[in-house]
């Protein structure tokens, strides 16, 4: 028995076969060489240590492996500790693109602060990285997580592009642009009418603009994201345990929603409704663009009084009325919310 043979056997036993061992060994050695050395080891012990294929440790091999394993497991770290760099060694597994494109720069920056910092890199995709992590062979894996994560592994999202961005995006987009999009859709020769005519569902264009229908569609679209965001926050605040309790007690999914989730998110629904109401009643751009100069709402009337008719006193009176309505609705809703909060 010499220690080099034992080391080779340690790698073979740990990685489950000669071929995987060669792949995982920290120094270059060819497979026939490993096979030869292992054969020498078995010869000196006078017994076989493992079945080749499929790989399985035999009792003698198991005994030997258990004895040498703690030694070889720790030898690297002991060596480091003696060299004085043990505190700053990190073993990372990541896909190649991360290793090549992102890590070098990060590594360079960390090195600046910790000159003794050492990094071991493993190229691995998700499943392999998870296995390495659980086997304790790496400290960190950078990988794409599908919905579920492995147990006993802590994970932190580095980058996520949530679906909510698709709700925020139209909200951040220029109001004029969005209204313009609806003109293109709803006009007499717009997309909706063209489509319906081509499908043979109607023969003459429907009147979708310059009336309540057009305004309703356009304004619903424009203020929908506000409602979505309010409701996301409201539903997130409903304690999960309460829903789970209802489900445990035998409620169907729909019943859990109507009996638990909906009442508990009512304040959020009210707040969202008030917000959308106030925004809609104050809207100028969309009603003007989709309603044209003839179909009027309060805000467009105020605009006309000031800019076209130059009747500022009337416009001011209308402005006052609009403000009073908006503030009145907000005041009422805040009273209502407070009463609810008092009841709870």
């Amino acid at each position, binding site marked *: 028995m010499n220690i080099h043979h034992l080391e080779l056997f340690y790698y073979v036993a740990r990685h489950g076969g000669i071929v995987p061992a060669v792949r995982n060994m920290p120094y270059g050695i060819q497979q026939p060489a490993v096979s030869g050395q292992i054969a020498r080891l078995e010869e000196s012990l006078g017994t076989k240590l493992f079945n080749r294929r499929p790989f399985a440790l035999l009792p003698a091999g198991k005994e030997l492996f258990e004895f040498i394993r703690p030694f070889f497991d720790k030898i690297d770290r002991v060596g480091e500790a003696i060299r004085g760099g043990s505190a700053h060694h990190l073993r990372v597994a990541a896909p190649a693109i991360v290793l090549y494109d992102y890590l070098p720069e990060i590594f360079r920056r960390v090195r600046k602060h910790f000159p003794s910092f050492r990094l071991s890199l493993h190229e691995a995709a998700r499943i392999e990285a998870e296995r390495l992590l659980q086997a304790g062979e790496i400290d960190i894996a950078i990988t794409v997580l599908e919905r*579920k994560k492995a147990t006993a592994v802590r994970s932190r999202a580095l*980058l996520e*592009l*949530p*679906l909510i*961005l*698709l*709700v*925020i*995006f*139209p*909200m*951040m*987009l*220029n*109001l*004029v*642009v*969005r*209204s*313009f*999009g609806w*003109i*293109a*859709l709803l*006009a007499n*020769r717009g*997309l909706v009418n*063209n489509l319906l005519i081509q499908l043979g569902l109607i023969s003459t264009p429907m009147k979708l603009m310059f009336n309540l229908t057009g305004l309703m569609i356009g304004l619903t*679209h424009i203020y*929908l*994201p506000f409602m*979505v*965001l309010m409701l996301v926050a409201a539903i997130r605040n409903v304690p*999960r345990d309460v829903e*789970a309790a209802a*489900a445990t007690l035998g409620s169907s*999914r729909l019943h859990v929603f109507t009996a638990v989730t909906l009442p508990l998110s009512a304040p959020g629904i009210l707040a969202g409704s008030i917000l959308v109401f*106030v925004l809609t*009643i*104050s809207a*100028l*751009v969309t009603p*003007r*663009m989709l309603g044209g*100069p003839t179909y009027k709402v309060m*805000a467009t009337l*105020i*605009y006309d009084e*000031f*800019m076209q008719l130059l009747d*500022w006193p009337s*416009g*001011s009176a209308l*402005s006052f009325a*609009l*403000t009073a309505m*908006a*503030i009145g609705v*907000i005041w009422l809703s805040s009273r209502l919310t407070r009463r609810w909060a008092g009841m709870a």
Partner: protein
Amino acid sequence: MSSATDSDDRPGFAVTTTALAVIVFLQIPVIVVVLAAFSTTSYLTIPPRGLTLAWFGKVLTDPTYLAAIRMSLMLACGSTVISLVLGVAAAYALFRKALPGSEAITSVLMAPLILPAVVIGVALLQYYSLTGLRGSLFGLLMAHVVITVPYIVRSALASLAGLDLAVEEAARVLGANGFEAFRLVTLPLIQPGLVAGALFAFITSLDNVPVTIFLIGANQTTLPVLIFSSVEMGIDPSVAAVSTLLIVATGIILLIAERVAGFHRFV
């Protein structure tokens, strides 16, 4: 959330479908505008006939559009910077309760979020007429500060609320003066919130028609005001082209903000 309930939480088919339908509905006008910008026809058609970049060329060489874009960007940048300075200072003072009547002041600062924008527009119009600021660039810039400052104050107050005052006090104990402690400790800590707030402010200014349209001088215009009034004149695909440019710019800014500050957490 425990992992045991995870599988039960997964939404069913109906919920997923509805959510996707809503998300698609929200993108429809955006897609339509982008498609319309590439049409070779001189009127607006969807789906577009042919494929041309001519309308983009027209927009980017048209002095009216260029002047409007420049004006919009200038107003948005100017009002965001001014609002940041004023709003962060105000929020900090309110947070440290340096002033009596903090709550009343907060309400006043937030009022432009609740008041109808048209009303702010006409109110400022009358005020500016009396003071002679009407049609001046300074007046317009200040009007944009009024409508953008609530976003900064709101995000700064929210960020400050999550702050441990002890770190700032620690900085003071270690010899920093008040301003240094704020600049080196507090400011970096509230920075992500401020990035999001500043983005909101910038986009609000860039977006605004109801205030701007009442206050803008005779031969000036901003991009949204230009689009708004050109729609009444009749539209050609150059409106779609300039809208497409705005859509792309907004998308890029949003993605950057998401990566830099995790923007969606602040909405």
